[in-house]
């Protein structure tokens, strides 16, 4: 059994100040790290015999527009299959310069996940072999999952109802002598 405290101690003794903090989210611990060290931290978690986080479960980003200077959080979920242990890693990025090292050298599967992350949040994965959009059209010039692009207000009133079959002309076809 791999204890959260043990993982944290090992990371702290190896990386010192590059480990910024941690939080406990239900059953999974999340460790905050320095974004410059992301590849080194994940490489260490992969290589170390006692830790052995050799499976990348998930990779995504979150946008917090109010945290100035640290707007984007890139988060990795790694898994140790032998000891059945999840660990989440988080790296805060400045939205003006969202650079972080790619994990494609460590996990091939990170390729598309990073492309998806770039596509929706504009995270620039340095060293990625093919960092192009994966879901959206290539001509798109913005990153849709960022919070500055709100969805349409469900209660908006300015729509032209005629276009949606709810206008007057729809119900009063008889009057038009058709």
């Amino acid at each position, binding site marked *: 059994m791999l204890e959260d405290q043990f993982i944290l101690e090992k990371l702290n003794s190896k990386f010192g100040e590059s480990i910024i903090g941690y939080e406990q989210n239900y059953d999974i611990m999340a460790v905050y790290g320095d974004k410059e060290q992301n590849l080194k931290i994940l490489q260490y978690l992969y290589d170390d015999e006692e830790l052995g986080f050799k499976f990348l479960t998930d990779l995504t980003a*979150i946008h917090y527009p109010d945290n100035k200077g640290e707007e984007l959080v890139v988060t990795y979920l790694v898994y140790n299959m032998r000891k059945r242990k999840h660990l989440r890693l988080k790296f805060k990025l400045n939205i003006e310069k969202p650079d972080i090292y790619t994990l494609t050298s460590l996990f091939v599967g990170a390729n598309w996940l990073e492309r998806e992350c770039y596509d929706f949040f504009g995270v620039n994965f340095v060293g990625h072999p093919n960092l192009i959009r994966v879901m959206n059209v290539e001509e798109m010039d913005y990153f849709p999952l960022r919070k500055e692009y709100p969805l349409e207000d469900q209660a908006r009133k300015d729509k032209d109802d005629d276009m949606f079959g709810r206008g007057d002309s729809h119900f009063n076809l008889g009057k038009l002598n058709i």
Partner: protein
Amino acid sequence: MKEIKEKERKNIELPEESLEKKSRTLNLGPTHPATHGVFQNILEMDGEKILSAEATVGYIHRAFEKIAEQRAFYQVTPLTDRLNYCSAPINNLGWHMTVEKLLGVEMPKRVDYMRVIIMELARISDHLICNSVIGVDAGAFTGFLYVMKYRELIYEIYEEISGGRLTTNIGRIGGFERDFNQIAWEKIDKFLNEYPKILKEFEGLFDRNRIFMERTQGVGGISLERALHYGFTGPNLRAAGLDYDIRTAKPYSRYEEFDFKVPVGTTGDVYDRYMVRNQEMWQSLSLIRQAVQKINDLKGEEAIPHHADVPDYYLPLKEKVYTKMEEMIYHFKIIYGEIDPPVGEVYHAVEGGNGELGFYLVSDGGRAAYRLHFRRPCFIYYQAYPEIIVGSLISDAILTMSSMNMIAGEMDA
């Protein structure tokens, strides 16, 4: 996976009008009848042999993650239907469990067993489609038509429980909207009695069929090491030889109380994937039987509930909303979002039809998720597809695609 010779690689790079150029570019998809969905593959072909491949997705991207940021939790369930639509109930219930984990709600035993029945039925219908479609792509149509009758029966069971067939929107946060009715129980019994015989006959058609074995063995294989590197989960990983199954690795919905085996393959080729799925159907049948037995064994108070006692989150039945005071109050409270969920983030994974289906939910206390991310197994393992098919024939590539159970809806989310 076979190696491509240096000479062939040089050939690809020649310009289109060159006389020496032997290969040609072929667009397989995005709407090709053999790909069973919207997938595009740009292939470089030498005759029938694939020299290089490039996979493209995104044709049916529907921005579920963005939409979920403006919808209350109970409104996200219909979106999850449309991920892997071959086993929609697993997605629905996985989402409910994620929210329940965030809220800290514990389910009664009976609800968990009912969920196991639904999820295992969904797994059977998912595997059924996948395996019979492998047969169709290999030229054996009979098996497909033969088992389709029983997928129909499974859909009828869903219909009795939720009213939906393909996109089920089954259950609620906190349980089921209503108890299974008598017809549903009878149909489950009918399924349990009749399906084993059909599955046996289906296996008889394929398992030791010489033509089927020749077509599938050694085709579309991937080594365990590469599969893990790519992030494979579910039957595709188990076919490569690792018994990773979330039902045993991180049990949810009381799977730890059940007795079942996790079948594994060795080579990770089409035949192994087919066999793993077939064996899983037998295990699912046994799981449903056990769950029905466990529900019948419950006594007294435990034998009644079909939902947990959490009126703050459990959307009441519409008839009661119209006739009972308390239910009406809670209905309005939930619909108008007066009850704040806790702040926090939670990751919950269920064993979906084709792998680890994860929900990463970040809540800021609002009625909608601050961020919701789906870990879609299809999206993750589709990137291995070009690597697997390079060097093989185009007919094998089609078989490989159907055996990996690629679902376009899950990939594009």
